[in-house]
Structure formats: C-alpha cells, structure tokens
C-alpha cells in the first residue's frame, strides 16, 4: 500500500543517512523518490557523497565506494526490519582494509538482532567471526565442511555422516 511504502521508505532513508557516515567515516548520503507524486510505482534514487568530496553522480564513485554505499543501504533496511539471519557472500571483496574494519564493526553490532553468516576470502573478516567453517574439496568435486580455528588448525571435521 502507498502509506506503508512511504513509511518504510522514510524510516530506511533516515537510517541510511545515519549509517553511511559511519561506514565512510564521514560524508553523507540519502535516498530520493524519483516521482513523489506516484508513490505506488516511483523508483528510488541514491545520492552519496564520500567525506571531503563534492556531490556528483553515484556512477562516478569507485568500485569500493559503490559497494560500501550498497552495504549501507542493505544494512539500513536490515536495521528497520531485522530478519533472523543475514547471509553475505563475499560482499567485502572490493573493500580496502579500513573499510573492511568498519564493515565488520557494523556486522558485529547487528548481531544484537540477528545471526550473520559471512562468506569471505579476507583475513581481517575471518578474524572477526565467532565461529569459522572451512569448506574443502580434498576429493575433487566433493564438498566437505570442517571447523576451523584461525591459524589454520582444523578443530574437528563436521558432517561426514554418510
């Protein structure tokens, strides 16, 4: 319904304006309705300005800046209506070390409401997990899951219950 979309849009927008500067250590961003007259169908525009930079089209942002802005939007929606769990598959891939740390700080905060499952190749992200599973293919084409301690020790193999 029109009211419900607008209410959610405004809540998400408010949260996004708060979340973006935390991920970017400054700057600002917001959402805009393409057509405020048409709440049933209007698309959503994103406006984003990293700290110290001038406002310009989001297309000119860097790969990492675009990814972090998108993470900010997803997290904002998530904070308005948390789901029991959130699965993030390699969202940290384009981020540099400083942005990964802020990303992981925010994931940590959100575990107050939900479980997070993050797939990653990044060591910093691995260090911020409570529980780490390694997926291996000792036998080509056959996946196996083991529990991992950082430092690479295999704690115990899981799941080989045939």
């Amino acid at each position, binding site marked *: 319904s029109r009211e419900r979309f607008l209410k959610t*849009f405004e809540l998400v927008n408010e949260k996004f304006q708060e979340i973006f500067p935390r991920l970017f250590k400054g700057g600002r961003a917001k959402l805009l309705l393409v057509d405020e007259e048409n709440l049933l169908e209007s*698309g959503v525009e994103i406006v984003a300005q990293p700290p110290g930079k001038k406002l310009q089209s989001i297309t000119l942002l860097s790969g990492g800046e675009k990814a972090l802005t998108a993470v900010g939007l997803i997290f904002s929606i*998530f904070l308005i209506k948390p789901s029991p769990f959130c699965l993030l598959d390699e969202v940290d891939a384009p981020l540099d070390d400083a942005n990964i740390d802020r990303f992981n700080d925010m994931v940590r905060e959100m575990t107050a409401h939900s479980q997070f*499952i993050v797939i990653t190749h990044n060591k910093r992200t691995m260090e911020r997990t409570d529980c780490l599973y390694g997926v291996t293919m000792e036998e080509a*084409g056959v996946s196996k899951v083991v529990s991992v301690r950082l430092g690479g020790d295999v704690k115990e193999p899981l799941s080989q219950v045939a």
Partner: protein
Amino acid sequence: MKLKSLELFGFKSFVDKTTIHFEEGVTGVVGPNGCGKSNIVDAIRWAMGEQSAKHLRGSEMQDVIFNGTSSRASIGMSQVILSFDLTDGRAPAGYTDYTEVQVERRLYRSGESEYYINKVPCRLRDIVDLFLGTGVGTKAYSIIEQGRIGHILASKPEERRFIIEEAA
C-alpha cells in the same frame, strides 16, 4: 526465530550428507575457489522455496542434484533440511507453540519434488508462506549473493524500490 542447522545431501557439490550448525553471532565460511561456499547459500535459498533455477545459477532445477565427478557417479536425489529454533519467541505465524520448525525439500532426477514442514508432507507454497512475514525469504534483503552488492547501485530505480518494498 534462529537458524539452527543446515543439512545437505546430494545438493550440488555436497554429495555426502553434511550438517552445519549455526551459532549466535557471526559465522564465517571460508575455503578456496569452487569448494562449495556459495552452494551453501544456494541450499538455504532452495530449502526456503526458491522457485527459479536461474537464481541458483542453474538452467533447470535438476541442476542442483549432484551430477558426479570424474571419480563418482551422479546420484538421483537432492535433499536439504533447514532447522530453526523458535525458543526466542519470534515464531512464524501458526508456529508459536513450537520450539523448532524444520523445512525439508527433495528433488528427484525425474523432476518429482517433495516438501516437508516438521516432517509432515506439504506443498512448496506452504514453505514459501511459512517464511512470509518473518523477514527471511528468497527475495529478501537478508541474502546478498556473490556479485550482487556491485549491482545494487547500478540497478534501475525501480529495482531499488523493490528491495525497500520487501521490508515494507
């Protein structure tokens, strides 16, 4: 409603029965390219009722059944069981008296499918309905598959609206 465990048997590269337990907090999944990490995400989506093979990187749904390796034959069925703990009081509609809810999906090479909620046979739509309103669903903003984060800013304004509508 908390994710408790995922059991895969014959789902994509998980030919051998595999059970993964999920704890509180942040669970990391790591491993080399192609070892099966994203297949775990596919399994969770599939168990929750994903209806499009394309969203699971396949062209037809049978693509999720383990299809063999150079040293193992393909098999005839894929099975995934997803279990949730309901003791935190956030249960899906109709399950407020339960301490656990488990959804199970099977697909045979013939194309036949079976669906179960708490071991009771049901239809695919019952599984989809179970998750409606819980904030978890195959289309929700709570599953960001590999590569998708880069598309959100590039997407059309109407597609971004859709993500927000999911939370409305």
